[in-house]
């Protein structure tokens, strides 16, 4: 079978099995109601993931809107070569990366003018602070856990965070994550392993004994450590 035959078969496969692909094809043909339906399906997931991907910015909705705008602008050239969610989150990944870059540039300026640094720069210090009030009983309520977990996720680097969120909340396979992030499956495997080990290293001492993370742990992992 030639490569073009294989591509056609793949396209037909996505057309048949992914209802969102069918909706997007309707959008491509000018059906605005289909696009509204897609937005209704993905808005909460997308806003949530953008909120966690771009830490501390509180601009999940704005970024999700940007993603939907890009999807709509690209509708005429849309080809179903992957699941719709894979395509959507690829765009989301790009939008988030741009936002993080902008944010870090702004943060650099902010840090230069304020030597004390922002709370974003030291998320694990915040975890330690949050933990200190809970140590006597270790009875963590859900709100406290969610705060700690959010901060722990922020301690991951951008790529680890993206891979983790796609795996956890979108239930994506390694293969789909690799397509979304433009990485090899093996790289995703390694990325997720490191992400989950980092989370464990941050959260376990806190869960078990309320121990403040050490200085080594509190250094945010860099992209090179992927």
């Amino acid at each position, binding site marked *: 079978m030639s490569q073009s035959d294989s591509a056609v078969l793949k396209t037909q496969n996505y057309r048949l099995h992914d209802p969102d692909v069918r909706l997007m094809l309707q959008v491509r043909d000018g059906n*605005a109601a289909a696009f*509204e339906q897609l*937005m*209704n399906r993905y*808005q*909460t*997931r997308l*806003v*949530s993931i953008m*909120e*966690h991907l771009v830490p501390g910015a509180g601009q*999940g*909705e704005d970024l*999700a*809107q940007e993603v*939907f*705008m890009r999807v*709509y602008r690209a509708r005429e050239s849309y080809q179903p070569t992957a699941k719709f969610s894979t395509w959507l989150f690829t765009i989301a990944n790009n939008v988030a990366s741009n936002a993080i870059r902008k944010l870090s540039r702004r943060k650099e300026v902010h840090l230069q003018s304020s030597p004390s640094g922002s709370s974003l720069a030291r998320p694990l210090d915040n975890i330690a602070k949050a933990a200190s009030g809970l140590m006597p009983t270790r009875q963590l309520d*859900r709100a406290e*856990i*969610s705060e700690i*977990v*959010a901060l722990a*996720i922020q301690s991951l680097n951008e790529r680890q965070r993206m891979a*983790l969120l796609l*795996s*956890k909340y979108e239930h994506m*396979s*390694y293969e789909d994550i690799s397509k979304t992030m433009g990485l090899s499956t*093996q790289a995703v*495997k*390694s990325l*997720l*392993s*490191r992400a*989950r*080990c980092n*989370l*464990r290293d941050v*959260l*376990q001492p806190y*869960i078990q004994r309320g121990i403040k993370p050490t200085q080594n742990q509190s250094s945010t992992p860099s992209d090179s450590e992927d």
Partner: protein
Amino acid sequence: MHDPQQPNPQDAASQSPTERSENPDAEEQVLVAYLDGELDTEAATQLESRLSRDAELRGRLRELQQTWDMLDALPQTQPNESFVESTIEMMVTSAQTVRPRWHRWPIRIALGACAFGITALVAFQTVRQIQSQPYREFVRDMDFIENVDTYVAVRDIEFLEQLYEAAIFTEDLAEPP
């Protein structure tokens, strides 16, 4: 085909505790892949066999699972009720700001053509006027230029007026030979 530079999940899954410590990254990858359901049946079986013998490994797996489960506590951010509506409005606004550009093209082209025509006309007239100026002066001075030898021969204008009044050469002027 397995990449020789990457840890082989099957090897890691079947490692003894002594071997394991030499390659901790590979083992974590196997544990995580197992939790994610990404191990093939053979590697999963080997790992399960090891887990049944190795309490420490079970503990590590449990910790990874525990922190993974904690992520469920992360709240989903609910978008504003008007999120979809406002996004559609943004799209419409965006489309409107883009579309008129195309709609204005014919008007722009027409205005441009008019401006070009007017400029060209003004330029043409100006050049023509400038170019015709020496010719007009030449026409105006033609009588003088034709008789310049005569004018040079006479002494002054009063002498010529006297000749004219005396009508000595009037016939010559009226009827050229």
